[in-house]
């Protein structure tokens, strides 16, 4: 089990995410804004590729291909001296951790991947056993922020005391490697703790708190009806909890909630009075970030203007 006191704030490779980049880029700008304010030493590298997680969970990528691509990204981290790989997406987190464990424990996999590097004259990418540790070198942004709650609380500029908040923790953060998350995987509280440090009124438990967002990788597309039924169940549970703001930690969940909330309102003939944001957007906002130029709220499908005005932020 990870401990908060062991979460690093130096040598962070902020691992870019495909879905953040093209669906919610405000998550990345909010993360770097918050890291700058909190004195986190990080690097964003143009050499890093995607983790292949979407392809892997679409059943297209095989494990060896995903592992080889991951090993190349691990070399990017090592070459730059930023070896604490920290992700904005929960699937990047799970994929990177799993492939690192595989490279460390399976000599045949390591040898196959290294032979490919050698044959392509990319010897500098060679993965040496245990050159990264699957526990000590992999983090999600939410963990870095959690380790900084005291500072976040002190630097907070907004009165969130009458904002009723619920959280959704991403499945691939706390269910894949459930014995290596901060807290109890049956009742995750990382985002709750950060929101509380800013004075928000957080509902720690609601009926379907641990239910998936409903994206389900290919489910959103090949089983759209079921995907929306799951998301509808989740939104109904949030509605019953009477919340105003839902905070999450993964761009795929954010698509499912923010983009599909208006779709569900239409197709299920219902109405929801809550807005959505990522925990990095929440922290950046608390630390004084511009809601448009840093958080990128203007591209959300569920408009945040009314909510922001209510808490005293002009947009």
């Amino acid at each position, binding site marked *: 089990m990870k401990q908060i006191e062991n979460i690093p704030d130096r040598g962070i490779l902020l691992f870019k995410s495909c879905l953040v980049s093209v669906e919610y880029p405000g998550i990345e700008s909010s993360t770097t804004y918050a890291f700058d304010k909190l004195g986190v030493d990080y690097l964003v590298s143009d050499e890093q590729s995607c983790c292949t997680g979407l392809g892997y969970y679409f059943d297209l990528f095989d*494990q060896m291909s995903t592992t080889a691509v991951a090993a190349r990204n691990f070399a990017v981290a090592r070459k730059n001296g930023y070896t604490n790989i920290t992700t904005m997406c929960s699937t990047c987190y799970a994929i990177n951790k799993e492939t690192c464990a595989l490279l460390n424990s399976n000599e045949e996999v390591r040898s196959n991947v290294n032979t490919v590097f050698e044959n*392509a004259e990319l010897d500098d990418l060679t993965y040496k056993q245990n050159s990264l540790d699957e526990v000590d070198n992999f983090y999600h942004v939410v963990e870095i922020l959690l380790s900084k709650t005291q500072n976040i609380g002190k630097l907070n500029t907004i009165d969130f005391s009458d904002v009723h908040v619920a959280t959704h923790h991403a499945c691939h953060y706390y269910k894949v490697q459930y014995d290596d998350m901060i807290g109890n995987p049956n009742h995750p509280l990382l985002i709750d703790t950060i929101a509380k440090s800013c004075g928000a009124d957080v509902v720690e438990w609601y009926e379907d708190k641990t239910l998936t967002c409903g994206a389900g990788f290919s489910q959103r597309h090949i089983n759209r009806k079921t995907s929306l039924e799951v998301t509808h169940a989740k939104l109904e549970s949030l509605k019953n909890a009477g919340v105003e703001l839902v905070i999450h930690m993964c761009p795929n969940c954010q698509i499912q909630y923010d983009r599909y909330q208006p779709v569900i309102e239409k197709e299920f003939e219902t109405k929801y009075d809550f807005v959505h944001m990522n925990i990095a957007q929440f922290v950046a906002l608390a630390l004084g970030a511009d809601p448009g130029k*840093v958080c990128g709220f203007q591209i959300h499908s569920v408009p945040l203007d009314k909510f922001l005005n209510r808490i005293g932020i002009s947009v």
Partner: protein
Amino acid sequence: MTDMMADEMIDTLSEYDTPICDTLAETVKKSLRTSDTIGIDRCMQCGACTASCPAARFTDYNPRKIIKRVMENDISVIEDESIWNCFYCYTCHLRCPRNNSPTQVVQVVRQMAINKGIGLDKLEVLFEYGDAFAELGVSKIPDLYVGQMEDDFDMRWHEFKNNLDSVRSELGLGTVGVKDTGRGEIRAILAGIGFFDRQEKMKQMAEAELNTSDEKGGITNETN
């Protein structure tokens, strides 16, 4: 294992994802897609997986029964349409008291189905994904799926998509994609590891399936 089953299982698109073994349970345990310690042999059919499964809540997918069929070496499980309903949310993986992982098992079962040309109608829209990944080093949502998003989403999303580069620039972010040298590396790595060969075989199988279905006058593309 029967001779018939051995014949059926000769083809594998990846000896690592679906190694050829005497039983389905052995294939599951040896697959690189599953944990080394996966407790499929310890499954006591308690149903905690099904009780907590979002797909079981809304469809006829039943992870407990899928595990039972795998344990009983029932190869027909690869033809069960319900295997394509799993969300890969890993709730069953978390809840199982015997360290089994139905979601990992289903990943292997789907790969075994793909080996037999089953489910390729669902996968062929993804074939552009691998090529786009090699080109930019970035995952790309397939065009057909983007089409669904275009139909579903509001004007805010459309406007944002039409102005992605300028929105990113206003947020202080550069263009999307890996540096040029990195792209060459990714292509070489995917070629060396056999990704493109595997994808080519899948494409050929998908085409053969389509032709067979045309001859029968049927339709294979059942998207819903």
